[in-house]
């Protein structure tokens, strides 16, 4: 979690984002797997943890030099992490989260430090990548139910001129609501869809992970520091 509010997503912030996501996944791995029990195959936490640990290892190995290093761009950092997730996760969430990060990285291009509008465009690209790959729509009880409103909330905040960390916090909040919205839904994609109507009544594990991902982004951008400052200013 960044102690200061950041005005842009640079490579260091991107790395902090990924480390924060990895830490959240490690902490919540059991919960994620439990969510995957009634509607899936009880491996979502294990899967994502395998992937995020590999991302951490790559960040550590790269040091300050490679794509993950201080010299890299945020686009490179996210792209490399995306490829690692695709390679290592082993479940549906691997290609999906991996594609999200790769698309975000690609959308950021060569910019050394992305502003709110650029991050918004990157998140939109991530969502589009997930939808193109998995073909889920909002309402199918998948991670898209969290990611879609999160991207919309981020864009709205950015358009209204909110500072980057606050846009990220809005996205995280929308992701949480979106994840909760999956409970009454019948799953129409992924393993949960094998259950048909019996998939109703459960929170989708991948939607919860998306919430963790966006919360980690808000934290890495120092949304809390911003809120604290706003609190002081009031």
């Amino acid at each position, binding site marked *: 979690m960044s102690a200061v509010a950041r005005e842009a997503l640079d490579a260091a912030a991107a790395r902090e984002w990924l480390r924060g996501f990895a830490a959240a996944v490690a902490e919540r791995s059991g919960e994620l797997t439990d969510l995957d029990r009634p509607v899936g195959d009880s491996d979502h936490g294990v899967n994502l943890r*395998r992937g995020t640990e590999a991302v951490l290892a790559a960040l550590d190995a790269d040091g300050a030099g490679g794509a993950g290093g201080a010299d890299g761009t945020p686009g490179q950092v996210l792209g490399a992490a995306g490829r690692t997730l695709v390679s290592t996760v082993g479940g549906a969430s*691997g290609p999906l989260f991996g594609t999200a990060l790769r698309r975000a990285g690609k959308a950021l291009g060569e910019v050394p430090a992305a502003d709110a509008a650029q991050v918004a465009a990157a998140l939109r690209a991530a969502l589009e990548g997930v939808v193109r790959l998995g073909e889920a729509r909002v309402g199918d009880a998948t991670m898209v139910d969290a990611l879609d409103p999160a991207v919309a909330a981020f864009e709205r905040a950015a358009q209204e001129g909110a500072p980057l960390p606050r846009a990220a916090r809005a996205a995280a909040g929308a992701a949480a609501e979106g994840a909760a919205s999956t409970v009454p839904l019948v799953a129409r994609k*992924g393993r949960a869809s094998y259950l048909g109507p019996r998939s109703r009544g459960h929170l989708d594990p991948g939607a919860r992970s998306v919430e963790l991902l966006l919360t980690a982004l808000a934290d890495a951008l120092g949304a809390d520091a911003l809120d604290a400052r706003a609190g002081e200013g009031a």
Partner: protein
Amino acid sequence: MSAPVRLVLLSHSAAAAAGVAELAAQVAGGAQRVRAVGGTADGGLGTSADALEEACRAALDEGADVAVLVDLGSAVLTAKAWLAELEDEELARVRLVDAPFLEGAVAAAVTASTGAALAEVVAQAEVARGLRKL
């Protein structure tokens, strides 16, 4: 003459991939045509994009075209995510097959063993979808 066709069988289970490969190789009269890719790197149930890449790459490097058969939905995602990274030239030489895993693999193997081209191998495997057994 069209390029020879190799099959890559991607399953969440190493045993399922190996077993189906064994059946397919038997009807195709040769194991060199079929590669099994199953399980995660740490031996669990899951699909490994790296192992998929390695198997496909080996076939492409030999000059063969590749038909990829997958077991469950998330294997489709793994395969599609990997395909999305290929350049056009290679992309044209790899096809993801929309067929039942075992039945499609056997049909594809039989067809490939006759020297048929990739499109024909894929078409025959996809015929296996919907075939009745009883």
